[in-house]
């Protein structure tokens, strides 16, 4: 590997709300791109390539909506590439932007996108269609039901309770209340979560992410460009992605490679990104984490997979002890995370952006004091495709 690092020099995020009736889809993309470009202090002429972050078309209801997005990202006559890995799309897009630069082909790359999930009405209608039409489409599958079954297996293996799940929701809602960009900002109690209506047992309404509309954008640059132009930056020091089998039923049964209770490939991805960053003991070396967790229970297996605890399942007690909240040992999702804001096309980019803001010391009211090393993750598809990053000041 070369010694030339890749830095993040600009970040833009819109405010995330259920609906944005004042902004068309490309307007919402631009709403994130403009502040990212201003943050970088660059003109569009400086951009060598654009990586466009867009998950399933049906979520925004526009076929190949990257067509409509080209103008909003200043993409005319530039290298242009759309990325879609479902929920992982945002971090996959940052990864693709990273490799454009790490390969030596580009100096400055913009990655951006937006989603309007609130206009879809019922995202599970779209998400049911990610199952194969041959065997499983006729079953009532969706991401909620799929991850409810992960929760049931996690309960069996590690003793998680419904109340343990509620603790995650309470923590993240409290943290989101400090983040003006977050969608769900109202604090809730354990009783509120436990009394909220059951969606797919054990997942209740307040264990679920909202359907959000909003955009995100980031500008990445080569270390040489950053030094030559005397720009401020934080650095992507570890980057990896991993996939696992499509078949949920293969993550159960006899000796599965990827246990459905856990996030196996997420763990392998973290291993690789830690190795690249030279991190040997993440539970001591990581200061802040933005881990993709759209349902409360999934934050536990994300913390396990990121090895912020000694062994799988320890995340339950340690979260309850306050280790992963703002002011704790390693704050997890100080922005409120995916549980409080989920504009699917850019959710995993927001994980990277929030981690970058943390190690930059620019996170605002939800800043983790003194954070210098952060991690971010994204999960996509049927809990199948994962991306991870280490970001350092």
């Amino acid at each position, binding site marked *: 590997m070369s010694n030339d690092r890749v830095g993040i020099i600009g970040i833009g995020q819109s405010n995330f709300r259920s609906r944005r009736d004042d902004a068309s889809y490309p307007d919402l993309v631009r709403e994130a791109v403009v502040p990212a470009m201003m943050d970088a202090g660059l003109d569009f002429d400086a951009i060598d390539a654009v990586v466009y972050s867009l998950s399933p078309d049906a979520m925004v209801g526009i076929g190949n909506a990257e067509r409509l997005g080209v103008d909003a990202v200043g993409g005319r006559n530039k290298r242009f590439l759309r990325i879609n890995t479902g929920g992982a799309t945002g971090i996959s897009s940052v990864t693709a932007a990273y490799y454009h630069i790490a390969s030596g082909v580009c100096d400055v790359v913009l990655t951006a996108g937006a989603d309007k999930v609130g206009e879809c009405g019922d995202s*599970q209608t779209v998400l049911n269609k990610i199952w194969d039409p041959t065997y499983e489409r006729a079953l*009532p599958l969706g991401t909620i039901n799929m991850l*409810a*079954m992960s929760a*049931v297996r996690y309960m069996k293996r590690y003793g998680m309770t419904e109340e343990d799940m509620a603790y995650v929701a309470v923590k993240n809602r409290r943290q989101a209340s400090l983040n003006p960009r977050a969608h769900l900002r109202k604090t809730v109690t354990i009783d509120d979560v436990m009394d909220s209506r059951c969606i797919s*047992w054990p997942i209740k309404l307040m264990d679920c992410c909202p359907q959000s509309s909003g955009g995100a954008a980031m500008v990445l640059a080569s270390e040489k460009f950053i030094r030559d132009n005397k720009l401020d930056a934080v650095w992507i020091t570890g980057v990896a992605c991993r996939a696992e089998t499509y078949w949920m*039923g293969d993550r*159960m049964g006899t000796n599965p490679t990827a246990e459905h209770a856990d996030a196996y490939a997420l763990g392998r991805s973290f291993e690789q990104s830690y190795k690249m960053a030279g991190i040997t003991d993440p539970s001591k070396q990581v200061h802040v984490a933005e881990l993709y967790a759209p349902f409360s229970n999934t934050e536990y297996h994300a913390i396990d997979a990121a090895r912020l605890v000694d062994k799988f399942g320890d995340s339950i007690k340690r979260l309850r002890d306050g280790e992963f909240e703002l002011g704790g040992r390693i704050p997890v999702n100080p922005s409120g995370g995916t549980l409080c804001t989920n504009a699917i096309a850019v959710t995993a980019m927001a994980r990277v952006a929030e981690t970058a803001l943390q190690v930059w010391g620019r996170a605002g009211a939800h800043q983790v004091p003194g954070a210098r090393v952060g991690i971010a993750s994204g999960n996509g598809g049927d809990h199948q495709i994962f991306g991870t990053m280490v970001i350092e000041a």
Partner: protein
Amino acid sequence: MEQPMELLGRQEVWNIAYDHALGETASYFFTQIRDHGRIFGRRCAQSNRVLVPPRAFSDETLLPTTEWVEVGPGGRIEAFTFVYEQFNGLPPPPYAFGYVLLDGADTALGGYFRNVDLTNPREAAEKLAIGTRVVTKFAEQRKGDVLDFWFEIA
């Protein structure tokens, strides 16, 4: 103070009918279910694992599977959930479904659980605990579909 401007919307509906071909492997699987009420998996000769639902190749050895193996009708519960929310295009709630490792199989098959009282999800969760023995039941009228069968506590 200035009046907020009127913001307009438009409704669009996507409604596309696909006529999916199932291919040879799934066609055999579903005709056996339809005509005989029997469930088959495919064995990978190298790993000896029996994949259900059957696939033409193993994702682990990356070799073609070589043999049809009958599995079930008994099995054990591997995962479940009870759905209380109405989702567009999905059945009226409540319903129970999940995954079952059929006897002789190495991977789990999705299906509904029937004849379970879902009034109290916590009580139902104890009845359908992971590891519970179930048996596959078949509809009298079968059309060659995963909805031709379901699971009940044995």
